[in-house]
């Protein structure tokens, strides 16, 4: 029986988020104190050893990322928190910021000390205006208490573009430019915000840092699956009884998430599919539900962990129709910079509409497969690379649903 384990949500419901003293009473800012007394390289080594991997979706080793920015020579460096939580069905970052903003601030401050940055930004999803005050209040309190030791954080609001969750598009947006990804390399730890070394980490990643420093890398590395240790917050939506959130160790299986934490499918209906990681996630059939929710395990089944959104469909759902809507979403959210994504997302939507309306043929499905394969390896950024996944995985696992709609 899997159990919930709260690391990033450890203070959820226990403290008044607008009172820094509540956070301090729970041991808050002690990790920053401890980190600042450590040698920077030793600190980064500790984060590396914890094997904490980015919770934004790419799963890169956090300490390793920090070490690149630490080693980079520059007059200025930046710490950026990616709080552009734009994946439909995902609200884990909001939970953290709303209920425990100081844990994010502390995590960012530890990173700032480690890499030698004096300035940070929280890039906040445009649809979270209510969080601006909470974050600014918390930052103000931390400055007043002088716990940040000269590190300054500014909150920047996005304008609603999904692509700005991609770290380089986010950086462009902070710089006041059109929200579009840059080609990589160079990666942000060497040339990021204003071409200075920059660490961009997700809210959940930063929120894990204070606990790792407090309890040690070994402790953290021992939780969940060794290749992707720690916990992950999941937010459940769709045809599931408990439409809520959980923080669980990464060795928890998808089946446990859906049936145990999610309480199964309402109305005695049967399970059809689950999409994990947000709109660009793969649709997973029943046969793969015993997969642990860890990065590499998910990759092995052609899926991603992504943001931790869990979207469940019951047997009555028209999965081709759902996928058509997703295709429309990506046509709308493609930034238009690279040709295969700009044109490809529009064509995918066109072809899905054709098939969904009963006017498609096998040729259209084959064309989508070819196009999807090309997009997934040739697009400039993660958006275009991941956009075909829902289509490719539903064709693969639910081919009969497609065939039933063909002319």
């Amino acid at each position, binding site marked *: 029986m899997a159990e919930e384990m709260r690391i990033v949500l450890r203070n959820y419901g226990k403290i008044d988020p607008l009172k820094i003293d509540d956070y301090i009473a729970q041991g808050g800012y002690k990790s920053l104190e401890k980190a600042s007394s450590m040698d920077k390289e030793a600190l980064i080594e500790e984060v590396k050893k914890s094997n904490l991997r980015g919770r934004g979706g790419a799963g890169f080793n956090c300490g390793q990322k920090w070490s690149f920015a630490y080693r980079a020579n520059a007059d200025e460096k930046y710490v950026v928190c990616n709080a552009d939580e734009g994946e439909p069905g995902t609200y884990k970052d909001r939970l953290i910021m709303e209920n425990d903003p100081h844990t994010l601030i502390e995590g960012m401050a530890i990173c700032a000390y480690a890499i030698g940055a004096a300035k940070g930004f929280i890039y906040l999803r445009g649809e979270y205006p209510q969080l601006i005050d909470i974050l600014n209040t918390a930052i103000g309190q931390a400055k007043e208490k002088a716990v940040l030791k000269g590190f300054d954080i500014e909150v920047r609001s996005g304008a609603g573009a999904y692509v700005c969750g991609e770290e380089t598009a986010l950086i462009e947006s902070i710089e006041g430019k059109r929200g579009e990804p840059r*080609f990589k390399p160079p990666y942000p730890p060497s040339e990021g915000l204003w071409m200075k070394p920059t660490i961009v980490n997700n809210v959940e990643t930063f929120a894990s840092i204070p606990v790792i420093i407090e309890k040690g890398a070994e402790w953290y590395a021992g939780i969940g699956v060794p290749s992707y240790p720690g916990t992950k917050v999941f937010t459940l939506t769709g045809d599931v009884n408990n439409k809520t959130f959980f923080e669980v160790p990464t060795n928890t299986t998808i089946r446990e998430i859906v049936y145990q934490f999610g309480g199964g499918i309402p109305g005695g209906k049967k399970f059809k599919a689950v999409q994990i990681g947000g709109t660009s996630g793969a649709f997973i059939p029943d046969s793969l539900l015993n997969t642990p929710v860890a990065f590499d395990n998910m990759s092995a089944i052609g899926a991603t962990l992504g943001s931790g959104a869990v979207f469940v469909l019951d047997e009555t759902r028209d999965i081709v129709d759902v996928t058509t809507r997703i295709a429309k979403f990506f046509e709308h959210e493609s930034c*238009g910079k690279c040709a295969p994504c700009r044109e490809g997302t529009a064509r995918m939507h066109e072809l899905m509409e054709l098939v969904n309306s009963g006017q498609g043929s096998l040729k259209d499905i084959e064309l989508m497969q070819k*196009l999807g394969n*090309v997009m997934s*390896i*040739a697009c400039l950024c993660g958006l275009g690379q991941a956009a075909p996944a829902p289509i490719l995985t539903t064709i693969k696992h639910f081919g009969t649903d497609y065939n039933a709609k063909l002319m």
Partner: protein
Amino acid sequence: MVNLTIDGIKVSVPEGSTILQAAKEVGIKIPTLCHHPDQAVKANCRVCVCEVEGNRLLAAACAQPVMEGMVVKTRTPKVIEARKTILELILSHHPQDCLNCIRNGNCELQDLANEYFIRDNPFTLKVRGLKKDYSTPSLFRDPDKCVLCRRCIEACTVVQSVNALGLENRGVLSMVVPTMGGDLMDSACVMCGQCIHACPVGAIGEVEEIDKLLAAIADPDKVVVTQIAPAVRVAIGEEVGMKTGDMPMDVFVAGLRQVGFDYVLHTNFTADLTILEEGNELLQRLKEGGTLPMFTSCSPGWINFCETFYPDLLDNLSTCKSPQQMFGPLVKTYWADKMGIDPAKIYSVSIMPCTAKKFEAARPEMNASGYRDVDLVLTTREIGRLFRMSGLDFDKLAGTNFDSWMGAYTGAAVIFGASGGVMEAALRTVYEVVTGKTLEDVNFEVTRGITGIKEAEVDLDGTLVKVAIANGLSNARKLMDQVRAGESPYHFIEIMACPGGCIGGGGQPITKANAKRVERIDSIYVEDEKCAIRKSHENPEVKTLYDEFLHEPLGHKSHELLHTHYQAKNKKYL
């Protein structure tokens, strides 16, 4: 050096090189569309994708730096499928209009479609049906053809600092648009046409007016007279399959006669004249405490730029009209009189390396002769089309001379075509006028070359004159900001809107790389060297013009016909 393998071939290239550069070293051509040799890496078309061993994702060869031990494959089935699919996607959103397109036969997308033998595109053709923009007399835009490579935007913003072009909307609705999505005419566009050279397809081009010429030639009541700008000859050969600079001037003249021009004269004649007027204007300003530094005024893109962005510095502009616009009124007065031709019958056509010249000729003040001074401006490219239509074999065509009275020129006029040429020509004359001595070496090497900003100090027998030369408007902007701040050390500044000067003008044969501009510049100085006379004030026909008609530089007649005034442009959007 970094060692890698591309398609099984070992290659060693400097650190920081891209796969594209490394592949070129070993003769492997990787296809590109958004890549431009003189611009920043864009990596947005994805046509150059390659496989790198060990990577799931394909790498964009234009952007991917090489790494030690890298194993690259540029033509695996995966790569070819990706490239073909991407081309199919782009082409299915592009008008299938090649036969009617201004870039037919000279289009990077057409070439790629051919190289990758795109036949049955699986995607249905969806052309957006956007409005074409014919708002300016110089340039048109056909946004349906745009492939969103963004090279025009870089030319307009980074190279020219005009910022008339930008992006609007998102995703498949993305468009390159003039400022605020309006017409080009309402934007800050200076009509330099550098965007045309940047465009890989036919989304931007010059407003074509060959039909007007053909109608004039067909009209028995019209006497069709032409002038050829200094930068045209070195490039026109490129339009008819010759190497840069290889078209002899007399053969070019013969070709123009063949296609129906009644008289062939030369803008070089008024380039020499410009030196006398402008040189004396400079000396007058120096002597009488006039506004300094004085700016040259030959480049209409630059004039538009100054009127748009630096209206407070219009007094610094020389009042001299450009050589084209000096030529215009003289042909319909002085020359008509000499030839005994009714000026009302003269149809005056100029052949220019420039798109902004079309706008300049249409300025309402350019009618000093009592008629529109220059009736039609054709670009080098348009003349190229005319030549190709005519079927002329330039290898077999016997050369002919220019017609009299406005056809003679010196080497000083020839070099007007290259950045620094006006300055050098002016110095050759001003030196002799001021010092009364003969200039032993007429070559002012320091003024030459494609470098963005050049400066020099010239000793005119004790008087030190500081000069600067800029080509490309972002370089001009640097000098202008200095002047505006009151910190400019110069007396005289030459500015050409286009990189490299007129040889790189917006009307020249499509110029994908600055290397081509450099070739043309070299060819200009070779021509200068060949001229028997290399100082403007020694041009015999210019002497006759002053003796018989103008009487003196800056005199009454000159002011009436050869000088102009400028007006601030109150552009809707800046």
